[in-house]
């Protein structure tokens, strides 16, 4: 026991010293600490476990394998390690794990980190430790807004993209009058604002928008009100997520609002939500998806490889983790080093196409990844041909329209 304690102390002291000695640009070596370490920090046990979770680690491992296969002996990063940690959806745990990953487990990059408080905390650590952080799981635009920093990148989606994609496209396609219900907290309020702006820009009107309590089980007040509004809304836009969304959709179906001429558009929905609710509960619902596995042959081929390893179809988050890891390694390859500042320089302004991201640019001003996203509709089960075949792609929203323009609030 004593010996063990002592050895732990020695190891700790050693790690501390190593932590001070290492750091960015550590000396003459091209690759610091003898290898490149990619760390996936996400929720593997709570609400986001299905959306991303452990399978994102597998996706990152696939990216490493592809990188190695592509460059072979010429690979700058010849020794690559993938590690992971479960933040259990607790921001404080995410914060201390991020420090530990950077300091003691020598992570060169942290990937994923769902939920905004956790993501912003990790971004602060990335800034302090001068190590790269590529966020995928969080939706907040603060990451590329006021709280952006040189070492943080936001990859895949954000609240603006979700709201704007669905709001403006559905309006432009003829549904001019909207009734919006949103959960009354920061995310819902942001979504309401972005949606309203997008709808008005596309020539539509928001008849009414109502905040709902959060969390909430009973949406009948709002749903019963909808058909009696004047003018009668053509679309009910819901910004609810997770369990609240499930409840709202069930009640929407019970009140048969679709038969009364009110369609449903959802602000934030993932394929995992459709999977757990069943496609019939959501059939006909329009939403924006950053990526869909069955959208084209290239996606499908990758999804098949993913399925062989995990037994399930990938969500957008899995593909985004793969892409982020791959683009990071490619940047290391171009820079010839894993030094964070050099890799940031390579990532900034980089344009590329890969399985996840079409017509992609990493915007230099605020480190937001711009890429084509899909406007999707949920298929009824009669049209579902195979498991996870839930989405019909209505159209592709080009990268420059999908995301917000850089508004200058970010100072890197």
């Amino acid at each position: 026991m004593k010996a063990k304690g002592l050895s732990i102390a020695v190891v700790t002291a050693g790690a501390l010293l190593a932590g001070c000695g290492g750091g960015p640009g550590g000396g003459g070596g091209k690759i610091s600490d003898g290898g490149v370490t990619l760390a996936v920090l996400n929720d593997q046990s709570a609400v986001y476990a299905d959306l991303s979770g452990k399978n994102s680690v597998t996706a990152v491992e696939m990216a490493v394998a592809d990188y190695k296969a592509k460059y072979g002996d010429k690979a700058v990063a010849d020794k690559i390690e993938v590690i992971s940690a479960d933040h259990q959806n607790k921001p404080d745990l995410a914060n201390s794990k991020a420090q530990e990953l950077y300091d003691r487990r020598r992570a060169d990059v942290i990937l994923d980190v769902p939920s905004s408080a956790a993501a912003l905390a990790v971004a602060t650590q990335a800034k302090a430790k001068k190590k790269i952080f590529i966020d995928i799981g969080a939706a907040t635009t603060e990451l590329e807004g006021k709280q952006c920093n040189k070492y943080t990148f936001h990859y895949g989606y954000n609240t603006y993209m979700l709201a704007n994609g669905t709001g403006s496209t559905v309006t432009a396609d003829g549904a001019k009058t909207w009734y919006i219900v949103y959960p009354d907290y920061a995310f819902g309020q942001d979504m309401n604002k972005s949606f309203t702006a997008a709808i008005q820009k596309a020539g539509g009107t928001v008849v009414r928008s109502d905040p709902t309590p959060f969390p909430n089980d009973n949406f009948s007040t709002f749903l019963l009100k909808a058909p009696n509004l004047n003018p009668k809304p053509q679309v009910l836009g819901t910004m609810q997520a997770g369990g609240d969304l499930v409840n709202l959709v069930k009640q929407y179906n019970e009140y048969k609002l679709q038969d009364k001429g009110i369609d449903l558009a959802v602000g934030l929905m993932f394929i995992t939500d459709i999977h757990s609710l069943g496609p019939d509960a959501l059939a006909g619902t329009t939403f924006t998806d950053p990526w869909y596995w069955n959208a084209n042959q290239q996606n499908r081929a990758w999804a098949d490889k993913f399925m062989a390893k995990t037994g399930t179809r990938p969500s957008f988050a899995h593909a985004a983790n793969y892409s982020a890891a791959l683009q990071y390694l490619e940047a290391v390859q171009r820079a010839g080093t894993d030094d964070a500042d050099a890799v940031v320089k390579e990532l900034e302004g980089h344009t590329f196409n890969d399985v996840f991201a079409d017509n992609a640019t990493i915007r230099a001003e605020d480190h937001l990844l711009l890429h084509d996203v899909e406007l999707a509709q949920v298929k009824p089960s009669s049209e579902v041909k195979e498991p996870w075949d839930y989405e019909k792609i209505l159209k592709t929203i080009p990268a420059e329209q999908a995301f917000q323009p850089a508004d200058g609030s970010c100072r890197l």
Partner: protein
Amino acid sequence: MIIRLLARRPVAAGIGLIAALALPWLIYPPVAMDIMAWALLAVAVDLLLGYGGLLSFGHAAFWGTSAYTTGLIALHTGLPFPVAIVGGALAAAALAVPIGYLSVRLSGIYFAMVTLAFAQMIYFIVNQWRDVTGGENGLQGVPRELLGADLSDPFYFYYAGLPFVLLGLWAAWRIVRSPFGQVLVSIRDNPSRARALGYPVDRYRLLAFVLSAALAGLGGGVFAISHGFASLHDVYWTTSGQAVMMVILGGIGTLWGAVLGAAVIVTLNDYLATAGFEETGIVTGAIFVLIVLLFRKGLWGTGRDLLTAARARRARPAESGEDRKVEVATERPAAVAERSGG
């Protein structure tokens, strides 16, 4: 010999102090700081539960209020972090006055429910008041200012934050050992009798509630500075629940058991984060059930009983020790301390 030595208060306190000082050498410093901050929250809950007989299920309100207040003070005024932490603790205590005033009239499950309800109200306010609290994004980038000293290394910050925790733990110990603490115990055991003896029961309980909230606030402040942010999680009911769990694991009414419980839970959470299990909830839950079933008085309570039993056996080896055990099982922590102290 060792057993007798361990039971001496200065020796035990010394061991505790050395353990607290050595902690960041043994485990990752931010985790060590987490253990100490959570220990304060758990001790605060135990102060009410173990000594006042009041199960608070809403201590996240005080922990979180202090975390946000501390964060706001540090963020907007640039004052040294100790000032911010003290400010946070005071805010928590101030909040506890109205909440406590309305809740201490109740007991048992009603008290637990009312404190939970108040905590949820605070959660709601914090979630809504996003201009100040940042909503679900939390309050980010809280600085660690201390007269220009560089405390960015969590290892050094641990020693800067530790005095607050030790101060809080000492205060809790003093409260429990004081005549006030004795009255509190008597109110817990027999409120009607205490009232008949002329003690204003509600006022005693209120004071205990406010003191407990201040301790929880102290912990919350240290936590916020240590992490550099305050988040909605701090005011969420799971935080209250976790604190109650720590107390039960460590042993209700043992004070130091709560510290032990905090250490176990925080280390466990930290370990499970990288252990690769998917079902962390099941693991923590199973451990909780096992401890509650096997160690009825918590880790500390059971350990203390074993220690006392061992001493008794040594002191009177001729006797069977059967009746002795019965006495051990019912004695109060104060009684143990008195006998071992002197």
